[in-house]
């Protein structure tokens, strides 16, 4: 078995990434089944809004892990529902806290917020974090991801969030410093809004904003630490022997390297292997050869597995299991 599928520190997280339609779901399901057959408690989660994990496994799935076999569990996250509940929850807590504050029009703010760019990525990241938090219940967690663009942004988010949080913590420290200096001279400072009095916090451990910043930083740092640990996380790129998926894989490779997320393997899916000579397919085969050569050259040192195109789509546990065996290197 390939070592980047083996759980070393508690659990193993594997992301299957790739362009739309290359076979991410099939490959990830296959790998999950093969791992489960080896006795690892395996959870496969689909983050793709266009769900078809259930179709591949021929089971109806929901956002709660469903038992497929003794060791295999599967779930499909409903992104839209996730975003809705996420915003609903926030809106309620906000309204509660801001009862007395009519200085700004919060309703309007929330309207803007629900369409704010990146909300989908943040919701996805939250979902991934929730699963990783309970990671110890599993040996292997496999994520079937949305097409590359969104996934790369999600994988990059922890790092970007950390940069933001650190900057905000810096400003907050400066604010608290000044408040403390003023309080030293004039005594405790108060602030009144609509008849309610607040004491202005001057110390980090009594400032709610600072506490929230630090709590958030810790949560993000946890995800970041899991994602960048080669003992815990691996990324498998799925692609077809065509030029466009190759370009996309290259870009993914570059940006994952930038964010220090391990990239371990390429599954070359739907490779034509013809016995006789079919003149109509000759150009296609030549193009395929070219891509295969390019891949071998560009991703030297990376594990590349070729999966031939099947006359029938591989569905169902048994056939997927055999295919998965090839992917995990069994």
């Amino acid at each position, binding site marked *: 078995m390939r070592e980047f599928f083996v759980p070393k520190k508690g659990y193993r997280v594997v992301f299957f990434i790739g362009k739309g339609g290359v076979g991410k779901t099939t490959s990830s399901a296959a790998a999950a089944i093969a791992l489960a057959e080896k006795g690892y408690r395996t959870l496969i989660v689909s983050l793709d809004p266009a769900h078809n994990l259930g179709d591949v496994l021929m089971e109806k799935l929901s956002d709660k892990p469903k038992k497929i076999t003794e060791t295999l569990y599967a779930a499909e996250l409903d992104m839209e529902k996730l975003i809705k509940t996420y915003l609903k929850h926030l809106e309620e807590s906000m309204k509660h806290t801001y009862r007395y504050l009519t200085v700004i029009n919060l309703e309007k703010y929330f309207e803007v917020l629900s369409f704010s760019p990146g909300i989908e990525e943040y919701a996805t990241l*939250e979902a991934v974090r929730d699963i990783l938090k309970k990671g110890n219940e599993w040996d292997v967690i496999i994520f079937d991801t949305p097409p590359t663009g969104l996934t790369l942004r999600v994988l990059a988010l922890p790092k970007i969030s950390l940069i*933001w949080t650190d900057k*905000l913590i810096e*400003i907050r420290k400066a604010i608290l410093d000044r408040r403390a200096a003023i309080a030293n001279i004039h005594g405790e400072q108060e602030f009144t809004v609509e008849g309610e009095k607040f004491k202005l916090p001057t110390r980090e451990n009594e400032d709610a904003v600072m506490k929230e910043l630090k709590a958030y930083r810790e949560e993000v740092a946890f995800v970041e630490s899991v994602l960048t640990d080669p003992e815990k996380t691996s990324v498998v790129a799925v692609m077809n022997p065509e030029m466009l998926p190759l370009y996309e894989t290259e870009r993914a490779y570059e940006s994952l390297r930038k964010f220090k997320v391990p990239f371990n393997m390429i599954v070359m899916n739907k490779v034509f292997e013809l016995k006789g000579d079919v003149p109509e397919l000759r150009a296609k085969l030549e193009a395929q050869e070219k891509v295969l050569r390019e891949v071998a050259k560009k991703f030297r040192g990376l594990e590349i597995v070729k999966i031939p195109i099947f006359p029938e789509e591989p569905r169902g546990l048994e056939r997927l299991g055999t295919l998965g065996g090839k992917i995990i290197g069994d």
Partner: protein
Amino acid sequence: MKEREKSPTENLKAFLRGFFGAFKHSSTEYLEFELRELENVFALILMGEFIGIPSPPTTLVIRLLPHMTRELYVMQRRAVDMDDILGELAGMFEIT
């Protein structure tokens, strides 16, 4: 009648309190200005979406908002007094 008249020492004390109070006040004038600006900037960054600058993680923004009463208030005041910032600066540096 007698009660209203304070002893000379008390008068002196009150005078000194006022005298040093003024010093105390002017000693923190710059600090307070700086603090207000920082609070304003902090709120502005979190509200960046409104003015078209990239904004920090939405999750973080929303989690911070409930504790940001003071900063939002300062930001609002700052926006209202926008055209008087130069005046404030001039006053602070005693340019008249």
